[in-house]
């Protein structure tokens, strides 16, 4: 009991060294608190992101494999078509799907935009299509007609690159020939909403299709992706969106007469299908299912898994960085604490010598020094952890606040992009999903996230400091054991 009393006295009277030790422990506690909170919050974010991120699967023709196939096989090859897409989508593994149809068209009634070096800004379909273009280069038409089975997957409108500025969006349920055109195209040809334009399939100029302009979109490029493919088709201003029924009609009116396998493929190349799987682990099962339903084995499966992992890289980097920062803090902190303790004990050689000379046992002296360290560590830990918790909470809150408000403005503007309609249930993709989750369960979720992390962090920091204190205590013990009272006293005189 008197040992504890003496320890307190010693801390009080020699507060200089206690404060030094306390500040060091405080700093270690604060920085490990912050880095641990950042680490665990980012880990939770990564986990929820992976859990929520949709696994998107599509099928692409393995052209190399098909090229090497025998002629019989080539002839037997059947390309993916809309009915097969629907059949494949009809599976418990698929939570949602969409497909796009694309066809290039020509028109004598209007002029296309034809400056040669133009920025291409469209969804990734177009970029992938580049491989296929040389085949139909000679007769490709000027306008790219694209239709989405579910327009809420039309990325350009979701992310605001494109925006309806006049009229309204397309209606997939309508059997009319509808289209929306770019601002540039409408200005060049003096087209307004309600006007009709005749288009024809490039290889069949006799049959024309009368389309009604239902909307005009503007587009702002925020991406520096240049295409070096010449041709009007690649000009983003010549991009026309239409409904599925129109393209289906055009495609069925113009079946490929060619027996050659490649021509047939390119004819159906306008079809792209994406399947959103409900279970990340079901990829192989899904592929088997699709093959059983009649998908040609010349298709290979493409997923966005890598993309998901790539998009997680920055947050994972933060997590890793904070972990290394934590380890560094602890190593440096441990060295400093041990060093300070050793210096403290060397400084107190005389005191230890006196205590030994008046008969205090080594064990009791060690007990006193250890309790001093524990008291100082405990107090500075409480202070350090409180500071660390408060500041890390502030930092995390601020981070999330920013993300949430940017999300809120997003939702509003997505509706604006589609011409103010909310007939599509907006699907959130990419990192919006995680935020969506935050939003749906309101801010409570954030609070819970932080609080639960803090509790874990608190226990961890506490444990670490305890270990550090114990280590330095052992070192002090080994020092004290070497001291003989007479030697210490004689050295001092």
């Amino acid at each position, binding site marked *: 009991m008197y040992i504890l009393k*003496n320890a307190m006295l010693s801390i009080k*009277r020699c507060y200089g060294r206690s404060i030094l030790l306390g500040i060091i422990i405080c700093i270690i506690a604060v920085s490990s608190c912050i880095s641990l909170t950042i680490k665990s919050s980012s880990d939770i974010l990564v986990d929820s992101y992976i859990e929520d991120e949709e696994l998107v699967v599509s099928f692409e023709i393995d052209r190399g494999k098909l090229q090497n196939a025998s002629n019989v096989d080539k002839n037997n090859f059947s390309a993916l078509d809309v009915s097969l897409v629907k059949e494949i989508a009809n599976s418990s593994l698929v939570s949602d799907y969409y497909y796009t149809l694309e066809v290039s068209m020509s028109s004598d009634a209007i002029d296309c935009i034809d400056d040669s070096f133009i920025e291409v800004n469209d969804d990734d379909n177009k970029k992938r299509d580049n491989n296929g273009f040389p085949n139909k280069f000679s007769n490709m038409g000027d306008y790219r007609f694209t239709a989405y089975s579910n327009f809420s997957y039309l990325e350009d409108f979701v992310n605001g690159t494109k925006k309806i500025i006049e009229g309204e969006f397309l209606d997939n349920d309508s059997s009319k020939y509808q289209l929306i055109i770019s601002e540039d195209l409408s200005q060049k040809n003096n087209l307004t909403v309600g006007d009709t334009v005749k288009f024809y399939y490039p290889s069949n100029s006799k049959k024309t299709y009368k389309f009604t302009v239902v909307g005009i979109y503007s587009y702002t490029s925020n991406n520096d992706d240049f295409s070096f493919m010449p041709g009007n088709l690649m000009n983003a201003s010549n991009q026309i969106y239409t409904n599925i029924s129109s393209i289906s009609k055009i495609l069925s009116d113009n079946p490929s007469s060619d027996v050659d396998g490649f021509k047939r493929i390119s004819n159906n190349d306008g079809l792209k299908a994406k399947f959103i799987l409900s279970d990340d682990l079901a990829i192989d099962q899904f592929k088997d299912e699709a093959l059983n339903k009649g998908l040609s084995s010349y298709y290979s499966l493409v997923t966005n898994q890598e993309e998901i992992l790539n998009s997680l890289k920055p947050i994972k980097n933060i997590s890793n960085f904070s972990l290394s920062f934590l380890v560094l803090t602890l190593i440096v902190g441990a060295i400093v604490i041990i060093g300070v303790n050793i210096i403290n004990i060397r400084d107190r050689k005389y005191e230890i010598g*006196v205590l030994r*000379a*008046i*008969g*205090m*046992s080594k064990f009791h002296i060690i007990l006193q020094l250890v309790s001093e360290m524990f008291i100082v560590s405990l107090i500075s830990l409480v202070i350090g952890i409180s500071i660390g918790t408060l500041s890390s909470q502030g930092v995390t809150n601020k981070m999330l606040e920013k993300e949430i408000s940017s999300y809120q403005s997003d939702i509003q503007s997505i509706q604006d992009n589609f011409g103010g309609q909310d007939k599509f249930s907006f699907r959130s993709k990419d990192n919006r999903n995680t935020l969506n989750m935050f939003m749906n369960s309101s801010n409570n979720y954030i609070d819970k996230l932080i609080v639960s992390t803090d509790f874990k962090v608190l226990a961890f920091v506490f444990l670490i400091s305890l270990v550090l204190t114990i280590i330095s205590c052992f070192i002090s013990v080994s020092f004290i054991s070497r001291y003989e009272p007479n030697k210490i*006293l004689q050295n*001092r005189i």
Partner: protein
Amino acid sequence: MCILKICDGSFSYDRKKLILNNINVSFKRGVCYGIFGKSGTGKTTFLSLLAGLDTLTSGCIFYDGNDISKMNKDKYRSNDIGVIFQSFNLLPHLTALENVLLAMDISNNRSRNKKQDALSLLKKVGIDEVKAKRRVLHLSGGEQQRVAIARALSYNPKVILADEVTGNLDKDTERDIVDILKRLAHDDDKCIIIISHSDYVKENVDKVLFLKSGNLKEN
């Protein structure tokens, strides 16, 4: 009654030059001894051997019939023997009172009013309550010496070793201190061993011993 006894005691710091050479001497309770000798002859060394702070190179020291090398040294120092060091060896961050109380605590003194005992003890050696509550660093050399004496007496040991106990004191105080120590020997049946250069001490102790070339001799 023989409380301390040294048999064939020899000691050397460097295993070459013997500072103490084959000493045979015994100390009794109720007697106040004075050990004299030129500076550097090994008086403090002899005292630290008696206090169990160092061990003889050869020979034995018996306390109350027990070989102290086989005793628990901590308990021996904290209960059986009181040492007033030549350089006081007080704890500078504590007050005079706290220094005395600490020694009492270490000796496992279970008395209820330790504080009162300590204060009256300090008063006895001339430290009033105001000074008792001052840190020892803020006391004069002579006052520090008295605190050291009070500390040595605080746990009521049977043997008290006093090294240069009157070196920092004026004649009157020296007289007081020697008086106190003598009374402890005569009234409380303690064994007092004073190391000194002072003539007053030489004239007033019960028995005078000289340390010369490693040997303790009477007269």
